[in-house]
């Protein structure tokens, strides 16, 4: 029992329950089931990119370029659609572009052996630049969106699958797939070992480069998925579709228990953290709090949660050391 209740995921669950209680008390309409379900469409994309990002972080890397990859994939989808390719081919092209973006990141990191943060920072500019340039190709003039999608595509965002909104279903299905991959497969164990100690992983004969490359490619592909979901939701593909996901997604991964030093994290934690962050924004909005305050609060939430997590770890080890010291004194005397 203790092992279930003392997990970080339970703390996140408690946060979520507290949010529901507080926002429900302020505005009872917040707890309306259809509101709870449909407001997920506003933040599902955060989870869609945060989940594979968690795996990248666990493997000891980090990727900040996904925010641009979302826009790049959306634009590529829009261009493919503009030139009259069939819908399935358009989607495949967009996801393929995401995979290539991920592969590019991984190869740059391995070729230059420079910290992933810096390399993906570079590709953050490169990809958003590429998306801007590409959108100029079809005459969308720099920063405008590409629209005119077939109805079957735009209606997808408003579809209901088993009375759940489609973007949320995408998130859940993705979470299940990644949960199985990360926690119940050989590859998943290898990811954890890579992040814990690259040397240990290398001497165990694990193909570190391949493993890390796969994690980056996954992030790219799911950034593509997020781009498609957002394009369907808004009815147009824009360069800056993913810009707003950059900080919340990293927040979700870290709040969900992923250690920035690698080797620690979980899919369920990130999923819960996504819900915590998403409903915090939604709830604040419904309570009539201006959006500027809610952005301050979500920043504060990240700081406080992580400070508590690390602070409590520091405190625990401090208390443990004191107890050990007193024991030793008692034994000596």
């Amino acid at each position, binding site marked *: 029992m203790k092992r279930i209740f003392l997990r970080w995921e339970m703390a996140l669950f408690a946060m979520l329950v507290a949010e529901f209680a507080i926002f429900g008390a302020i505005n009872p309409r917040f707890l309306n089931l259809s509101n709870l379900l449909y407001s997920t469409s506003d933040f599902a994309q955060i989870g869609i990119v945060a989940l594979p990002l968690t795996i990248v972080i666990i493997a000891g890397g980090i990727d900040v370029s996904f925010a641009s990859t979302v826009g790049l994939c959306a634009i590529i989808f829009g261009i493919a659609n503009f030139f009259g390719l069939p819908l399935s081919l358009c989607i495949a092209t967009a996801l393929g572009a995401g995979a290539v973006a991920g592969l590019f990141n991984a190869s*740059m990191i391995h*070729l*230059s*052996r*420079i*910290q992933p*943060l*810096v*390399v993906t*920072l*570079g*590709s*953050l*500019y*490169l*990809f*958003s*630049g*590429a998306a*801007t*340039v590409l959108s*100029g190709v079809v005459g969308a003039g*720099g*920063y405008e969106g590409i629209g005119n999608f077939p109805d079957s595509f735009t209606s997808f965002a408003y579809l209901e699958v088993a009375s759940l909104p489609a973007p949320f279903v995408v998130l859940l299905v993705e979470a299940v797939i990644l949960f199985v991959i990360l926690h119940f497969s050989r590859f998943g164990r290898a990811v954890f070992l890579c992040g814990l100690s690259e040397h240990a992983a*290398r001497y165990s004969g694990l*193909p*570190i*480069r391949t493993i890390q490359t796969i994690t980056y490619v996954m992030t790219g592909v799911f950034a593509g998925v997020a781009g498609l979901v957002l394009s369907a939701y808004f009815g147009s593909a824009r360069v800056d579709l993913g810009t707003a996901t950059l*900080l919340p997604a*990293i*927040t979700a991964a*870290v709040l969900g228990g992923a250690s*920035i*030093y690698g080797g620690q994290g979980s899919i369920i934690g990130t999923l819960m953290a996504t819900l915590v962050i998403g409903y915090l924004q939604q709830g604040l909005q419904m309570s009539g709090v*201006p959006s*500027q*305050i*809610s*952005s*301050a*609060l*979500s*920043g*504060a*939430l*990240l*700081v406080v949660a*992580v*400070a508590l997590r*690390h*602070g409590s*770890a*520091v405190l625990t080890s401090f208390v443990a050391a004191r107890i050990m010291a007193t024991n030793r004194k008692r034994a000596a005397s």
Partner: protein
Amino acid sequence: MLDFFARNRVATLFGVTVLAFILIGMAAPGYLSLSTASVIMSNSLVLMTVALGTMLVILTRNIDVSSGSVLGLSAVILGLLLNNDVGLVPAIIVCLISGALAGLFNGILVTFFSVPSIIATLGTLGLFRGIMLILTGGKWIEELPQSLKFLAENGSIGISVLTVAVIIALAGVWAITRHTRFGRYFYAVGDNREAARHLGIRVNLVQISAFVAAGVLAALAGIIFAAQIGFIPNQAGNGVELKAIAANVLGGVSLLGGSGSVPGVFVGVIFMTSIDSALVFLKIPAFWNDFIAGAVLLLVLLLDGRVRIAVEKAIRAKRYAVHTPNKTTVIPAKPATAPTAQETTQ
């Protein structure tokens, strides 16, 4: 030759920058002129100041991604004070203090709560931006007094008060990091925290002062921003933290801490800024900016990484050459490449 460039990162970047200037000058006559230099200089002031603060933090093996929001927050505080008829000097002092407090907050989070710096500053990036928006109520601050805008005006010799301030800041940080004991502690802490602690350096103090300095410099950048633009939009300083980190990396500041210098950051910032102005002269549409900036950054990183790997290999080869029984030039290569081969075939 290879050795020289690998050891002198700044020299390499300086060479590349000069080469780039010459090439652009040939393609677009009129680019190489004093007026361009003056434009690049004044355009680079904000980034220069932020990057300087970021360098101090990176030296101690931390990172600060909140500087863009600190810039915005302190600029807003300055603007609000000035528009409520507070004098220019007290307003600037309060603005710098607010930057110091913001940096102190970051430093406390990182030092006493042992939150990884990227997470802590990522959180405060949102937090400070939110506080800024609460202060302004989401409105832009306009009609700043003329006395502030005057600071950004180029005087008779084409140099504004702000340029002088930034040059003083550069010189100050250079002098401190090069020639004072406390300044060297930044390098020591970043290079090896535990060793620094055992040497009796007050690691926590050094780390916090790095964050406070970064906050103050970001606030100075906020003053420059407000003076140059003449109003303060909501997104003031958005994204400048990423550019500052990029400029640092270009300038040879290692993100692993403990190495980097002020001249490097200077050249890095000038390089980044001159890309933007060069695009204007080459008549390339503005939407290529991000693409070219990203491509250049990645290219430099790739080159730098490859050169460093090559140099490490050469150094290792020299070291292992001692152990070979008959000193021919062919055999030393083999034991030398063995460890690296193992690494590359992971």
